[in-house]
Every structure is written in structure tokens, then in C-alpha cells.
């Protein structure tokens, strides 16, 4: 039996999505910037995709910038925004250095981008701690705000442990604070969220949530790898990070990846239909898996928040085993999962997320994540439950007491 439970890493392309993409490789191959028939055909497809995507988030089409994925979107949002402030800043005046508030459990796309901005001396950054469930407190975000704060960047759902962050709470107080800031001469604060792991299951109405900028990547919800978007509410000016032609209203140069963008729009449309039922179905399977593992194997702890968690992620630490070894034994049984163990990471550092949650390195060593998807069945879950306990017994037998 082949069981793929690594959907938080990536998903296969939906057949319907692929079907929508195919014409743009051959018959409708035009460049959307060309005035002739082929060009206009591509332009129409691009515009339609933009409208469909905007509908998903209930925003205007002009508020969508297509990118190569969440990493690029995050880079553009953070660097683009800070560069806007940098341009208007008096050099060497430290007090005016813009301030970013983020969390210590963000994806590396955010963490490394923030570090880069710090290194350039263009921004100061506060990396907020999280509690043992991987939750950042909205109050802590609020308290971290300073007169020079310009950006708050908090991920919607953590990719390793699935914890859902209090996005609406943060969005609400950012809105409120922004009302009073102009009077004190302080800059407006923008709220960015990396919503990559939330798109298919959670509310993504950005106005309701108070989100100004949102990043995502397509391959986590059955669109291809290498396409994503940055949502930017109107009135926010970003300095573009990729120079060249005037595509995407001058915000991202380079000929648009029409086929992939059409695929991204189709995948979002598919996910929007029946979103709640699918979230419920996946959550039930995930709960069955988590409860089964906790019951059948001793020394296991569910990582992440027990309730405030995305439906597709079940993550654990298993005492007395190493994650990569578990993955190899699972692979022998046809099961694909992932681990945040140092040995599995290749760079030999245990997951920064687990460490930030206060998980001891020895325990992070035995971390295991299963992430479910639309193809996951109850049979697959029961199959995992039938083989995992033996694997753990076998590996524990190998370990020194």
C-alpha cells in the first residue's frame, strides 16, 4: 500500500488543474504583453485568473501579484515595504529605522528575509516567542509595537505543528491602532500573513481578518510548484524586488507564467467549493490518526495546539527514537511522512519551531509529522496505525537504555 501523508510539504497537481493549464503550453502560447491575437488570448486568460483569485479572497483583481511561490511573495512583501521606508529615511538616523514584529516559528522564507533586512541595517526585528503549543499571544504582538513599527508578520498556520495563530485578533487591533497613529506622527502598520498552510481549510476573507498582505504558494493545494501570489491591499506601495519590464502594474517584472497562473486560479476555485466539508472530513481522519497513535504508543506527545490546529496536520514527538530512522522504516511500508529531527534536516539542527516551543532537543530528535490531503482515506489511516507501533518498538529495542 502506498500512503502519502506529506501534503504539507507538497501535493500532486489536480487533473482538473492540469487540464486548465495545458492549452497555454501549445495553442494559447501567447505573451500577454503582445497586441496580436495570441497575446490578447493570453492576456484574457491572465485577467480571468486574476479575477477568480481576487474573488477567492474577496479583494480587487489589482490587489493580486502573481509570483513564483510563497518565498518570493514573502521577500517582495517584506523587502518591498521596508525599501519604501528606507527611501524616505535620513541615513544614519537609527531612530527612524523601521521595525518589524514577527514570530520565532515562521517559515525560513520570513525569518531569513527579516535577518537579511537586519544585516543591511534597514530594519530592526522583534522575533516573538511562542508558548508550548506554538501559539503566539495577540497581546504580545500588540505589546511589541513601537512608534517605528511598520510591519507585523505572523503566519496563519504553522507548517510543522499546525497551530493556528490569532490572525483576526491581530488584524483587529492593527486596524484600531492605525486609526490613532497618524495623530502621533507614527507610520501606519501593515499586517502580513504567510497563509500557505491555511488556504484550503480556513477563512481567507482578508477584509474580515484585517490582513493587508498575504503570501501563498500553489503546490500545497494541488496547483503546480513554482507559482504563488502576494495579495497587497490597495494603497500600499512596495518597491519591486525584481526589475525589468512593466508587468503586473510595475510590481513584478518578467513575462507572466500564464499556464501556471491559470492552474493556480483553478486550484483555488476547486478548494473554495466544499471547503468546510473537506476541512471536517480531513479533521476527522487526522483525529483518528492522532488518537490512535497516542493510544497505541507510549511516550508520545502531540505537538502544536490541541484544538487551535489546522485540520491536516498531526505532529508528534516520540521518545527514544530518531525521526529519520522512523521515516525510513515507514518508507519501507510505503508510507511517506516527515520529521523535524536534526538528523533528518541535513543541516543537523533540530526544528527551530519545536525548539521555540520549548521542546528539548532530545525529544525533537523523535519528531514526526503526518499531513493529510484530499486523497487521504480511512483505510490509509488505519494502515499507518497498524504499522507505526511495531516500528517504534523495533527502534526502541535498538536504543541504549
Amino acid at each position, binding site marked *: 500500500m502506498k500512503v502519502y501523508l506529506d501534503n504539507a510539504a507538497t501535493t500532486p497537481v489536480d487533473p482538473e488543474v492540469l487540464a486548465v493549464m495545458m492549452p497555454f503550453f501549445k495553442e494559447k502560447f501567447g505573451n500577454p504583453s503582445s497586441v496580436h491575437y495570441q497575446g490578447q488570448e493570453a492576456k484574457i486568460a491572465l485577467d480571468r485568473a486574476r479575477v477568480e483569485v481576487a474573488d477567492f479572497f474577496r479583494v480587487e483583481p489589482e490587489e493580486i501579484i502573481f509570483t513564483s511561490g510563497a518565498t518570493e511573495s514573502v521577500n517582495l512583501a517584506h523587502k518591498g515595504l521596508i525599501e519604501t521606508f528606507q527611501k524616505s529615511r535620513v541615513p544614519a538616523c537609527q531612530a527612524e529605522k523601521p521595525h518589524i514584529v514577527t514570530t520565532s516559528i515562521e517559515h525560513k522564507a520570513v525569518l531569513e528575509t527579516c535577518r537579511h533586512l537586519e544585516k543591511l541595517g534597514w530594519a530592526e526585528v522583534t522575533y516573538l516567542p511562542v508558548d508550548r503549543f506554538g501559539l503566539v499571544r495577540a497581546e504580545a504582538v500588540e505589546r511589541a509595537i513601537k512608534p517605528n513599527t511598520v510591519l507585523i508578520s505572523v503566519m496563519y498556520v504553522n507548517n510543522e505543528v499546525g497551530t493556528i495563530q490569532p490572525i483576526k485578533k491581530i488584524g483587529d487591533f492593527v486596524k484600531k491602532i492605525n486609526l490613532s497613529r497618524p495623530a502621533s506622527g507614527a507610520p501606519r502598520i501593515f499586517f502580513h500573513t504567510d497563509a500557505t498552510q491555511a488556504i484550503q481549510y480556513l477563512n481567507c476573507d482578508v477584509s474580515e481578518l484585517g490582513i493587508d498582505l498575504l503570501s501563498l504558494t500553489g503546490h500545497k493545494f494541488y496547483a503546480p510548484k513554482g507559482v504563488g501570489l502576494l495579495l497587497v491591499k490597495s494603497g500600499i506601495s512596495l518597491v519591486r524586488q525584481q526589475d525589468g519590464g512593466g508587468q503586473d502594474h510595475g510590481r513584478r517584472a518578467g513575462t507572466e507564467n500564464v499556464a501556471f497562473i491559470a492552474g493556480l486560479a483553478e486550484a483555488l476555485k476547486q478548494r473554495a467549493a466544499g471547503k468546510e466539508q473537506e476541512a471536517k472530513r480531513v479533521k476527522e481522519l487526522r483525529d483518528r490518526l492522532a488518537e490512535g497513535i497516542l493510544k497505541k504508543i507510549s511516550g508520545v506527545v502531540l505537538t502544536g495546539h490541541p484544538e487551535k490546529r489546522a485540520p491536516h496536520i498531526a505532529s508528534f514527538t516520540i521518545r*527514544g527514537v*530518531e525521526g*529519520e*530512522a522512523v521515516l*525510513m522504516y515507514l518508507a519501507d511500508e510505503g508510507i511517506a511522512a516527515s520529521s523535524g529531527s536534526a538528523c533528518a534536516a*541535513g*543541516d543537523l539542527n533540530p526544528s527551530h519551531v519545536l525548539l521555540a516551543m520549548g521542546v528539548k532537543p532530545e525529544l525533537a*530528535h523523535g519528531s514526526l509529522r503526518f499531513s493529510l490531503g484530499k486523497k487521504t482515506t480511512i483505510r490509509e489511516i488505519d494502515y499507518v496505525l497498524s504499522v507505526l507501533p511495531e516500528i517504534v518498538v523495533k527502534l526502541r529495542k*535498538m536504543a541504549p*537504555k
Partner: protein
Amino acid sequence: MTLTYTKKVLDLLRNPKNMGQIIKPDGVAVVGNRVCGDVMKLYLRIGRRRRAIDGKEEEYVKNIKFQTLGCPAAIATSSILTEIAKGKTLTRALKISNREIVEELDGLPRTKLHCSVLAAEALKKAIRNYQGNEK
């Protein structure tokens, strides 16, 4: 990330040789890897035999067992180490290098080379533990 391992490594991961304990061992060592958190424990039974050429008595690794909490490379290197060391004189066993271990496994991914260093270190430490006990 799951790395590409050789068939030897995978076979040993599935069926490790000499895994377990020796009760009242002559030498024992525990080594840990500060880098990634793995722990390896080695148990030795030392024997004496006469050399065929000159009839001189020599000490050799009569039995060796391991227990490892670690990655596939750590398990495979511990296992292959016990196979290399078994039957060797202590003088020869002390010379087992991590390179020898890696070669026996038909190679290891670059980020996993330190696991073989750990195994070689464990054997030296266990032999010295025995020699220390003797004095």
C-alpha cells in the same frame, strides 16, 4: 529530508547485526553526538588466543554488541563497525578508522559522515575502557 543511502546502509538499517547487549562486558563505552543528539553504546567481550606464527598470546575482540539511538547512518555505521571489529586483535581494532567504516558501507551522504566518526570513536573508547579496567 530523506537522503540517498546505499543498499548496504539500508540493509543494515533493516537487519542490524550484533545489536543488543553483553551482560558483564569486559569493556563498554557510550558516546554521544553533540551535533545531532545521537547516542551509541558499545559492549566488548575480550578473548585471548595464541598467534599461529610465533605462539605469542594476543587479545582480540571475541564478541561485540551495540545499541544506538540515531539516524539510519548511525545505526548502519554501528552495525558495520561491530562486523569489522569482531575477531580482530585489539591492536588492529584500535586502528579502525571512520574511512574504513564508510568504505564498507559503499559510502555515506556527506552530511552523514560524522555518524561514522562517532562509531570509530566508540570502539576506541570501549577498548580503552577495557584496558583501564585491566590495570
